[in-house]
């Protein structure tokens, strides 16, 4: 009996030493982890905008970091998921460092396909939920979560239509000049064709015109669009109505309605 009791005591002491050793070295390892997160960069990509987050992890601890997983979920102010991206690093052995970049690609075509006209015309912000997980020493899973916001610059911010002026063009048609102004708050340049269709209050198309526009990022656009209408419809242009604006680029097409008058 005495030997059994002695052996149990020895086993308990050994286990306590293991627990204490692991706890102390684990805390020491965590304190010696170097986590550097770079600045979020907003860059134009082939199909939209890419938010790039460079980060590096220097593992100066005693244990391996395994299954590092960084997941971001971007949602618009209404909660619609715009992007779900995951960056996975299988292992960071002790004494090594890992440089990685988490890239969130926001596909403009998909945003515009969701009929988010307000995102075209008004500045907003996207919610970003960030989940990070890793397995410390392949024994202690750690999870981290937070949320943040990314500002969204509208490509047609403060879009406004001025007073339409009409002048005779030829014997059958009149020429109308439509002053248009907006600010490109987006990170990408707005290059494409803006087509304008003017509708009367009775929803009849009375004039149309096209203009090529090239507005660099963070620049203001203020110009006049020329449309041609039959002489009998010219008077309706100066009163009130609706405008159907169609902006076309090689990548996407977006359209929206504006009230004038």
């Amino acid at each position, binding site marked *: 009996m005495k030997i059994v009791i002695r052996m149990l005591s020895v086993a308990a002491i050994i286990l306590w030493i293991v*627990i204490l050793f692991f*706890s102390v070295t684990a805390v020491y390892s965590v*304190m010696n982890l170097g986590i550097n997160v770079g600045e979020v960069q907003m860059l134009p990509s082939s199909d939209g905008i890419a938010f790039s987050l460079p980060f590096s992890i220097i593992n100066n601890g005693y244990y391996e970091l395994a299954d590092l997983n960084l997941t971001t979920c971007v949602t618009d102010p209404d909660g619609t998921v715009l992007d779900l991206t995951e960056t996975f690093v299988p292992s960071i052995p002790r004494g090594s460092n890992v440089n990685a970049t988490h890239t969130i690609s926001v596909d403009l075509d998909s945003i515009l396909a969701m009929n988010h006209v307000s995102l075209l015309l008004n500045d907003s912000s996207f919610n970003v939920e960030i989940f990070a997980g890793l397995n410390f020493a392949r*024994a*202690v*899973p750690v999870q981290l979560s*937070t949320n943040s916001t990314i500002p969204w610059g509208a490509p047609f911010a403060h879009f406004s239509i001025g007073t339409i002026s009409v002048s005779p063009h030829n014997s059958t048609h009149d020429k109308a000049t439509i002053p248009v102004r907006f600010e490109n708050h987006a990170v990408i340049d707005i290059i494409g064709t803006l087509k304008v269709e003017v509708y009367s209050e009775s929803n009849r198309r009375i004039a149309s015109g096209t203009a090529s526009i090239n507005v660099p990022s963070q620049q203001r656009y203020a110009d006049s669009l020329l449309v041609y209408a039959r002489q009998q419809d010219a008077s309706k242009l100066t009163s009130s109505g609706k405008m159907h604006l169609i902006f076309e680029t090689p990548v996407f097409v977006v359209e929206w309605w504006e009230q004038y008058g």
Partner: protein
Amino acid sequence: MAELNAKSIVRELYPRALKATVWGSVTFLVVYYLPMMLYPTDMLPLDYATPLFQFAIIAVFFAVAGQLFSGTIIGCGFGVAKAIVIIAYFFAVSDGGVFSVTLPISELTVNLAVDISVLLLMIVSVNLINIAKNLLAAIDLLTEQSTNIDFTLN
């Protein structure tokens, strides 16, 4: 006869009390003072001083009680109680094995969850071994007492 009893009690109690005091002090130094010296509170953004102090109180209490009643059934009882209290304490502090904390880091609020189930399992195991050891020690003491033959009796 009463004088002899008092003398024997003092002779028995005095070294035990001294040993208990020394063990209590050493336990406090090892469990609270040493970790606080190695990892001061400003080192990690967590309030670990309070739970550590609570654990130190439990450890000191059972160290003192264990030394005062060592070699007795009551001492074994305190050994079992210590193991059960430590298991319960770690379960309560770690919220069943998943330790969660909310940290304000610059403008963000970061939720951190650490699954220390493996560590908790090891703590439970070592305390179950301690329970078994104390139960066996109690059985051993009772067996010794019941098999002792007092030849002074007529």
